[in-house]
């Protein structure tokens, strides 16, 4: 079997291979991918590339354990499957079972307004050169990085429950970084946008490029935020990063199901925040970067209400964790590629709107900080740190003096409990980057929320 076979032939072949394996459950995935990348930096073309890849995997559940084999060479599928079955005999069952699902037979496809495959390289390159020109316009901008990426993937999935799915997926996006420099001061600022669709997602991003350049220059001469404990108003972008990093990962059932203490901490019914706090993960929202029509175990996703009115009410599941915790599956088993194993991942994760206005929050947070955008975030499932893109002093109910290097840190549950006000202006964010877990990165996700007022947040730095 080669990639010249038709999708239908390939799917039939995969079905016959997994159907011949004597095991409790088997699934196969194959993906064919074509992608184009452009990276410009300052006056230079950093790299241009265009390439293709092909890969797949078979996973079986047998005697209470998973075995997995991945390959690039599709002609070897039957022999890999046989070796896999033999290896699975070495595993003694530790998993009691997996969630069984009804078969899904479907074809899904992204509907791009302008398919990336038919836009010339010339046009892609010209657009990026224009954006890069905007980025490097301010004289204090030392260098830039403007990246374009599109990828067109044909995915096939089938399992021994009778599910057979194909998905023509098209992903496109841009990211902009401006690095400003003055003497020994160096200040980067980045912006990114991406999603499922065509070339239209890369177009019309001039303002985004202008903002990246402008912010890098403005922040260059801002002071670092003084360290200490503050009441902070968090913007929708950083609220989204917080809820993804600090809370979303805690809700992933593979961190919970075998750990009694985690089970207690994350038990449904436990109050973690005020009445207005609602947190949702939903892979079914088309148009967002974390959209999946079906997960990589053949489960159709839907909204999971992780926190409802301040109370824990759901977890994110794979087939295995749903079975073990006796909860409904959520369609959150995702793999970064057809050659990686599905693990429990987020999709589109957000805090739902609350009752409060931004003005009311700024009034309440007198003497505190307004913190916005995110350079990154990391968590160890108890504590988190995030760096905001920038901060502003809150004075007389308005954001004032600009600060750079704002690093927030805290305990996740304490911080959820310290959310004092929730805004009504939710926005969602996703870009060319993505989420990383167990070496699978960057997985496309989106995150967001409204403005939040959080009490007593630790900001790192030289003490004020």
């Amino acid at each position, binding site marked *: 079997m080669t990639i010249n076979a038709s999708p239908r032939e390939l799917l039939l072949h995969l079905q016959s291979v997994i159907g011949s394996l004597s095991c409790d459950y088997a699934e196969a995935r194959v993906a064919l991918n074509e992608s184009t990348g452009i990276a410009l930096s300052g006056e230079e073309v950093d790299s241009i590339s265009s*390439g293709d890849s092909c890969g797949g995997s078979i996973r079986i559940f047998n005697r209470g354990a998973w075995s997995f084999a991945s390959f690039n060479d599709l002609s070897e599928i039957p022999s890999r499957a046989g*070796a896999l079955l033999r290896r*699975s005999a070495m595993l003694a069952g530790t998993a009691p079972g997996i969630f069984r699902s009804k078969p899904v037979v479907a074809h899904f496809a992204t509907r791009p307004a302008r398919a990336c495959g038919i836009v010339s390289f010339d046009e892609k390159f010209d657009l990026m050169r224009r954006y890069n020109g905007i980025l490097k316009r301010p004289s204090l901008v030392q260098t830039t990085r403007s990246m374009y990426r599109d990828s067109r993937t044909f995915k096939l999935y089938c399992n021994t429950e009778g599910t057979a799915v194909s998905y023509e997926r098209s992903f496109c996006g841009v990211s902009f970084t401006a690095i400003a420099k003055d003497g020994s001061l160096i200040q980067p600022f980045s912006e990114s946008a991406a999603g499922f669709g065509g070339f239209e997602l890369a177009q019309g991003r001039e303002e985004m490029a202008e903002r990246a350049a402008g912010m890098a220059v403005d922040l260059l001469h801002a002071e670092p935020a003084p360290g200490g404990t503050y009441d902070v108003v968090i913007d929708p972008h950083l609220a989204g990063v917080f809820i993804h990093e600090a809370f979303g990962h805690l809700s992933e059932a593979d961190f919970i199901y075998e750990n009694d203490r985690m089970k207690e901490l994350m038990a449904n019914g436990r109050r973690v925040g005020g009445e207005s706090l609602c947190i949702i993960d939903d892979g079914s929202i088309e148009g967002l970067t974390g959209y999946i029509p079906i997960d990589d175990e053949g489960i159709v996703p839907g909204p999971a209400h992780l926190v409802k009115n301040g109370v824990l009410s759901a977890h994110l599941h794979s087939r295995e964790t749903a079975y073990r915790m006796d909860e409904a599956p959520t369609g959150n088993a995702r793999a970064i590629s057809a050659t990686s194993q599905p693990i429990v991942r987020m999709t589109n994760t957000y805090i739902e709107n609350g009752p409060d206005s931004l003005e009311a929050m700024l009034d309440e947070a007198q003497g505190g900080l307004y913190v916005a955008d995110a350079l990154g975030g990391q968590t160890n499932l108890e504590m*988190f*740190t995030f760096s905001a893109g920038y901060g502003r002093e809150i004075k007389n109910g308005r954001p004032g003096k600009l600060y750079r290097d704002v*690093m927030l*840190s805290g305990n996740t549950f304490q911080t959820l409990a310290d959310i004092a006000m929730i805004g009504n202006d939710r926005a969602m964010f996703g870009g060319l980057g993505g989420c990383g877990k167990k070496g699978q990165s960057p997985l496309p996700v989106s995150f967001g929320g409204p403005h939040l007022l959080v009490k007593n947040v630790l900001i790192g730095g030289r003490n004020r």
Partner: protein
Amino acid sequence: MILKPPASLCKKCRWYDVIGTAGRSIPVFFRNNRLYSIAEKETSGVGVRVNVDGKVGFSYTGGDKGLETAMMRAIEIAPFGEYEEYSLPSASDPPAVELDAGRLEETDIAPVLSAAKEMIARILDAFPEAQVDMGISYGSGERRIQNSEGFEGIYRHSSFGAGITATIVAPDGVRLSVSEGVSSCGPVSYDAAVERLLWKLERACDVRRLAGGVLPVICTPKAFASLLGIVASGLSARSVFKGISPFAGKLGQRVFNESFTLMDDPLADGSVYSYPFDDEGVPARTKNIIDRGIVTEWISSLKYAARLGVRPSGNGSRGHSSLPEPSFSNIVVDGGDDDSNSLFATVRSGVLVDQFIGLGQSNTLTGEFKANLDLAYVIENGEITGRVKDCMLSGNLFELLAADSVFSSERIRYGAALAPFVLFPAVHFTS
């Protein structure tokens, strides 16, 4: 794998090179103290870089469309590429380095599993409430570089790596998680890693408070290895050329304390980060990058060496699907005269750091760092008295390394870095 492109396409190029990679590995996961999954991973691909009329294009393939299609695509997009005037290396005799312990993926898995089970049992013996996760991956592969100037290189490499994490969650939700790892090109023993892990767990059971201020801080080799990433990015010819390295224009100047010497060593036998030639076919060589505080050379690929007008350092690094970028091989930091005990003895009240969270989110181009301490200990009168948490360190790493930092004589390898303990006499600590 065929790396010989058709002559009709070669004729269109001023030069070209082809990289082919292939590998097979067996990843094994133990989750929550038990064997969870065994997998087999196979990867392969080919990348081709072409120079047409001075401009560089690139394409890759992992499927069976093959080299010819990829090369046609690369030639097609080359007019959009950058002018790159350097030439590729010609045929050479690369230095010898031990990288290959055979096809590890074909060896018997039973002893691998039993050694892992033994280690997990040892940890559970000391900490019955711990949950141990362990990832082991072993395998081998092949790397080929071929170019239009007559270079043809191929080498096989093998690797065996293990990461062990023990986690204890206290009834109040306080989470203690300690990770250790070990890797080599042949089968490894976990003994030393597990001993370090137990040492760190034992000392972290009591949580103590420490007031914020400016304190002496000791980094374990593991913590120091993660900080070294910040130094490494400033020593790349790429960031020097882009004008964003604070060391640009300081070649031959003293930038750090005399006690600090940092080497790039691609010829370290047995390391999975070693190679006989880099991913552009440049023969590997061991060299000081910082010699007693003085910056002596940049880490470069052919492109950025040419841009800066320096001798290529042999650090062009890539997979089959990307263009080469300058990257360290093995980072080796010289040890000091005294062992870590004598470093501890000088600290009346301070912090020992082992794991950061959020390092690298700050503006690290300038050496600035701010990070929460995932695993750190209070040092009182030279002794570790407990764990300190919910606190942050901040400072400028370049300033710390330029001041009176002290290095221990013993060193431990973490990933690509062989690093000592380091004592920084004064660092900002927020709690």
